[in-house]
């Protein structure tokens, strides 16, 4: 192998690794705050990507309808939980966030889908749609189980993943789609060619990591999220609702997932079920980070991306196998280093 090929592979690995880093960070965040291992993270990626690609192609994405349907479900849950103490303000607030909001977005989607909107509009709508899906999913599938064990939450998570994947097939069909580049154009530096798309990936990843850092370090809600992750009972005693933290975590995770999808879909053709594998690679990074460490997860994600790029060059048939094999030494080391822990019962 010569240096040029190596540089290409590195560049490719870092671009993919940046996306895995975002996904891994979202997984760590959601797990820390809600104890949910977010298998459907991959579906957020596909939904974001394919909603974007559909809109750009002038088609109406079914995800906008799903958002409204889930919103109605979330509204029904809110009403049911508050049935003994219903008061007007609560009903109105729930109605606006769960029904009016997705209805407006659906109307906008129908309006814009007919006229091949510009890229920026496609991105904004896709992000909005997937963000709402994430938020309502938490309300419908996870919030009622918030007090149960990690295992129950994991099972729910697998269920949500399977349901969303099936719906993905219904919405987008079995055909793969590609979307337009967010930023077209390219420049070369030495042997390397940087496309606008890869620059976008780097810029958005860095912006997101910096943004998350500021959010967690400086804002009250960011600190509340960290507090919930550190000590759930302590947070509740401070008046921080675990459900609020859960909503913020899911909102962030779904936006990150959708954004990753939008960044990938101009580079690779995505199918309704491609997200799962992409999400899993973020998961590998998150596991290497022990599901707690953000910096370790980000570094591990870059390693995953680079290993993937090199193995696809040397042994492309075994690309996935090699990436997932990274987990074995890590898990071995971790199990040797850490004392046996029993799962918390709270």
């Amino acid at each position, binding site marked *: 192998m010569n240096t040029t090929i190596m540089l290409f592979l590195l560049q490719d690995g870092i671009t993919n690794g940046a996306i895995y880093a975002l996904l891994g960070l979202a997984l760590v965040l959601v797990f820390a705050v809600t104890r949910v291992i977010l298998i459907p993270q991959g579906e957020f990626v596909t939904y974001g990507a394919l909603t974007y690609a559909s809109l750009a192609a002038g088609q109406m994405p079914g995800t906008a309808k799903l958002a409204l349907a889930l919103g109605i479900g979330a509204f029904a849950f809110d009403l049911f939980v508050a049935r003994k103490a219903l008061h007007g303000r609560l009903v109105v607030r729930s109605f606006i966030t769960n029904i009016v909001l997705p209805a407006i977005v659906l109307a906008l989607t129908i309006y814009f889908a007919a006229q091949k909107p510009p890229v920026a509009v496609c991105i904004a709508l896709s992000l909005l749609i997937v963000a709402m899906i994430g938020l309502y999913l938490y309300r419908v599938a996870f919030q009622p189980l918030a007090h149960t064990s990690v295992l129950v939450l994991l099972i729910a998570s697998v269920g949500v993943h399977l349901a969303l994947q099936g719906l993905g097939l219904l919405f987008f069909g079995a055909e793969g789609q590609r979307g337009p580049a967010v930023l077209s154009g390219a420049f070369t530096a030495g042997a390397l060619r940087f496309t606008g798309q890869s620059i976008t990936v780097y810029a958005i990843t860095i912006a997101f990591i910096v943004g998350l850092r500021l959010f967690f370090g400086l804002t009250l809600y960011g600190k509340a999220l960290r507090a919930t992750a550190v000590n759930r009972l*302590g947070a509740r005693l401070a*008046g*921080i609702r675990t459900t609020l933290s859960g909503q913020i975590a899911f909102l962030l995770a779904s936006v990150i997932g959708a954004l990753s999808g939008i960044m990938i879909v101009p580079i690779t053709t995505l199918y309704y079920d491609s997200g799962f594998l992409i999400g899993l690679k973020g998961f590998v990074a998150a596991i290497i980070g022990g599901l707690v460490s953000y910096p370790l997860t980000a570094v591990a994600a870059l390693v995953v991306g680079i290993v993937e790029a090199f193995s696809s060059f040397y042994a492309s048939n075994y690309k996935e196998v090699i990436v997932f094999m990274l987990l074995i030494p890590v898990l071995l080391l971790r199990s040797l280093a850490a004392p046996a822990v029993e799962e918390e019962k709270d």
Partner: protein
Amino acid sequence: MSALLSVTDAHVAYGKVEAVRSVSLEVGTNQIVTIVGANGAGKTTLLSAIMGILPLKGRVAFAGQDLARLDIEDRVAMGLGLVPEHRELFVTMNVEDNLELGAFRIERSRAKSSIERVYTLFPRLKERRKQLAGTLSGGEQQMLAMGRALMGEPKLLMLDEPSLGLAPIIVADIFRIITELRAGGVSVLLVEQNAQAALKIADQAYVMELGEFVLSGKASDIAANERVAASYLGFQHEGASVI
């Protein structure tokens, strides 16, 4: 005038085991009420249930409102605060962030002045404000836990064993601060194994044994009671705690 907190015929059970049986108590405004009793008597269980952490059968009313359907967070917003035995601090965050989060339900402008009040009450916390909560000493952590609860502007602060495992000089400090809280208009429900110190500052007292209140009355009368003196006061020195 009705009591600030009134608990009527409360039962708390862990599965089939009833840890608290038919307990009734009242805390008035500007009062320190203490529950004394041996380890395992059910004191912590009772406080947890009043806060909504454990399910309680019976009636709990706070500031005239029934708490039955309210979550922990709603109770906090109503002005009920708990400093739990294990403090439950955000150990990987600094002192200031811990305090700021204590005022999560309070308007931002008021939180600023609250933090100054807490720093006046606990000057040590001000010195340590950039230090991670997990690296504080036991006494400082207790101060931080109390400070965080006070940031929520409670009308009633429930303290679970605030002196547990602390050096006598710090215990004295904490008891002094509890009386200052009462002077500042905060009622206190104090659970203590250190009965002598607790009875000295309390207005009313309850003695708990095996999940039930066996005695109640003015703290001074309870302290003078022979049985109490023999069971709870005889083996202790002032300012020390039995662990």
